[in-house]
């Protein structure tokens, strides 16, 4: 039953509570009304005995009067009246009690009954005598009848009096009863109504309680607090449905917020990286610009030199100056962007050419490149400074032919770019310092284009978002150095394209 009650709709529940309360009030009312009604009925019949007696008395009078009239005038009408009244009276006295009991009323009734029968006998004898015109006889009988008539009248009177006194007593009693019943009714009604109010309050609060809890929770949510206890749905009515939906909504919102937070975190990191990269690039550019006082002027001057050497037919000079120009243009144009490996490798070629012209072919540059990787992207001016380092710190200070090997290979996850020299190498301590970014060089060397190795490492780390992007390997003094860059390949193919 409770299960069923819980499954009801709000309207159903409220209807049950109100109908129940009303039916109870109705029942109590009806029972009280029944009681009062019964008392009223009793009250109405209180004086019934007296009324009955009065009717008997009137019937008796009729008999006496009709007899007297007949004796006076002897008409058929009078005789008829007599018969009618006699019948009537006889009928009435038939109803009287004829048993002797300890109740004085019933004994008087009995006496009245017998006297009345006696009286009717005498009256009929009187009428007979009148018909027989026996004057003496009917006169005596008339006197006898009248005497009895008076006695009966007197008896009825005394019975009437006694009953009136008694009935008045019961009337007073009944009136008191009515008054008490009235008070009881009022008390009972008040009790029932107060109880009803309690029941209705109790049950309606049971109905609205989940609604209140729900609205409280909803208010919290509206204020932005999603860390609330979920509201428990106790019933299966509309409130239950809404509560469940609300709970689901809160859970979903929490999930969405979590996701948005995560993606925002990622984005923030990305932006931070980009910003750092930009900072480092700007730093590199600044240093570059400090080194190159006026690249445009230099570039244009080189172009003019190239044209002059062509006019003079000095092809080698032309090539040299042309390459110089390309190198500086590249530096000038691509310094702030991401370029392909191919472009970067071209730049290294030009750089090596320039160095070889300068140092009369001392540097042997070997390339071992997987062509598929050439389209991979890389921040500009990353490989060239490494090669520059190889030349400046590795090869130049050694005796014999320096060899620089560039190999680009592809593994499962990465593109490995290896730049290796056969120079003097470096100690592990130095390598660790460089990798950690704590290595301090005493100023830029004269042949540098202005970008240090730490700058390169930082930019690469930001670019691939990993610290393991670069590794420096050296087996010791005089055994050369290898710098390896790992560019990760993402799922979509070659990254940074």
């Amino acid at each position, binding site marked *: 039953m409770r299960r069923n009650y819980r499954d009801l709709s709000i309207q159903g529940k409220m209807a049950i509570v109100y109908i129940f309360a009303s039916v109870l009030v109705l029942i109590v009312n009806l*029972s009280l009304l029944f*009681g009062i009604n019964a*008392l009223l009925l009793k009250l109405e019949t209180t004086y019934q005995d007296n009324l009955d007696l009065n009717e008997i008395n009137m019937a008796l009078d009729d008999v006496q009067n009709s007899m007297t009239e007949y004796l006076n005038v002897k008409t058929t009408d009078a005789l008829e009246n007599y018969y009618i009244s006699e019948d009537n009276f006889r009928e009435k006295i038939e109803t009287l009690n004829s*048993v002797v009991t300890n109740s004085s009323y019933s004994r008087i009734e009995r006496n009245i009954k017998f*006297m009345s029968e006696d009286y009717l006998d005498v009256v009929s004898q009187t009428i007979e005598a009148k018909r027989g015109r026996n004057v003496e006889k009917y006169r005596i009988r008339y006197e006898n009848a009248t005497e009895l008539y008076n006695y009966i009248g007197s008896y009825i009177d005394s019975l009437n009096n006694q009953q009136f006194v008694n009935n008045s007593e019961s009337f007073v009693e009944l009136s008191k009863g009515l008054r008490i019943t009235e008070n009881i009714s009022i008390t009972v009604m008040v009790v029932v109504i107060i*109880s009803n109010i309690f029941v209705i309050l109790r049950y309606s609060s049971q109905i609205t309680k989940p609604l209140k809890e729900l609205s409280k929770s909803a208010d919290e949510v509206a204020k932005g607090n999603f860390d609330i206890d979920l509201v428990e749905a106790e019933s299966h009515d509309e409130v239950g449905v809404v509560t469940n939906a609300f709970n689901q909504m809160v859970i979903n919102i929490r999930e969405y917020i979590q996701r948005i937070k995560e993606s925002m975190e990622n984005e923030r990191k990305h932006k931070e990286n980009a910003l750092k990269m930009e900072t480092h690039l700007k730093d590199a550019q600044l240093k570059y610009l400090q080194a190159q006082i006026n690249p445009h002027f230099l570039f244009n001057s080189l172009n003019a030199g190239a044209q002059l050497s062509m006019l003079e037919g000095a092809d080698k000079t032309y090539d040299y100056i042309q390459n110089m120009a390309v190198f500086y243009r590249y530096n000038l144009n691509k310094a702030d962007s991401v370029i392909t490996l191919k472009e970067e490798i071209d730049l290294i070629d030009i750089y090596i050419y320039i160095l070889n012209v300068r140092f009369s072919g001392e540097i042997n540059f070997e390339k071992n490149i997987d062509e598929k990787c050439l389209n991979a992207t890389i921040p500009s001016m990353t490989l060239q400074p490494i090669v520059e380092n190889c030349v400046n710190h590795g090869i130049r200070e050694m005796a014999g032919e320096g060899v620089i090997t560039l190999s680009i290979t592809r593994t499962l996850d990465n593109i490995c770019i290896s730049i290796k020299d056969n120079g003097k190498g470096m100690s592990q301590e130095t390598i660790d310092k460089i990798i950690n970014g704590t290595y301090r060089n005493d100023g830029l060397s004269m042949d540098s284009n202005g970008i240090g190795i730490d700058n390169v490492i930082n930019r690469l780390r930001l670019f691939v978002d990993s610290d393991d992007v670069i590794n420096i390997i050296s087996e010791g003094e005089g055994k050369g150095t290898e710098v390896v860059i790992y560019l990760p390949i993402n799922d979509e193919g070659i990254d940074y394209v």
Partner: protein
Amino acid sequence: MKGKGKGKGKGIKGIEFFFVAYVIIVIFTALAGFRFVSVYFGSENKTQDSQTYDKYYVIISDNNQSSFWKSVYEGAYNHGLDNNVYVEDLAATMSDNYSKEELMKIAIASNVDGIMISADDSEEMTELINEAMSRNIPVVTLYNDALNSERISYVGVSNYNIGGEYGRQALSLATTEANNNPDKDVIDVVVLVNQTPTSGQMMVYSTIQEAFDNDALADKLQLSIEKIDNSNTFTAEETIRDIFINREAPDIIICLSELDTVCVYQAVIDYNKVGMVHILGYYESDSILQGIDRNIIDSTIKVDTTQMGEYCIDALFEYDKVGFTSQYFAVDVEVINKDNIDEYMEVTDNEA
């Protein structure tokens, strides 16, 4: 209900308890209402289931207000109840005052099962008794007989005994009086009788006379009768007062009824004749006993009234059973005077 689990269980139990208590209250109040009404009905119904009786006798007395007759009625009533007979004092049920003859007529017309009446020797009474007998209503005369009627029995005191007793008492008083006042020629003794004296009263009178005649003081003793008008309610008292006003107060007054005794007793006090007038009373009502105790009434005749009532019932019952009964039932008589007043006073006190 904030707590979950346990609290929830408690809440539901609480609501159920509340609900059950509420329903109980409502049902209880409704039942109480019904009960209240049924109690009212019950009290009405109780008066209706009454006991029924086999026979219905009526008693018609001289004066149903006097304690003498009340006592007689009580004796008859109680004895009647023992035999499942209801005895009614007919005059008490009527709102009007009727004479004994009228009451007799009413009793006959009411077709009662038996009549006890303090009768007299008048022709009318005799006729009425005979009529009742002819209509199969047995009549017992009580205290006062109707000698010539066909009544089945007479229950009463022996007037001869009473007369002798009065005579003895009167002589004793007269002797004392004569000794105290030797010069006194005449000792006046008055007997109060009805306007039309009953045969019983005359019997008492003549027995007293007889007692006086045989005494040594016979010459001095002068016995006379005073007729007391008892034709209606208050005349007796007036007539008695007239005795004290119209003539010289008698030395000894002999009363043959309770009412006369009380009236004389009061008149003696009122006319300051205490000690001069000796009263020989009748019956032992409280005021009469008081009078004896105060030395105003010299003695009184105690009739066993209860026995009188009982004998009436016995007579009617016997007649009903076997068709006849004894013609005469004599009721015991005792004299109460200063010597034995205490036991009667005690009895009365105890009864009170």
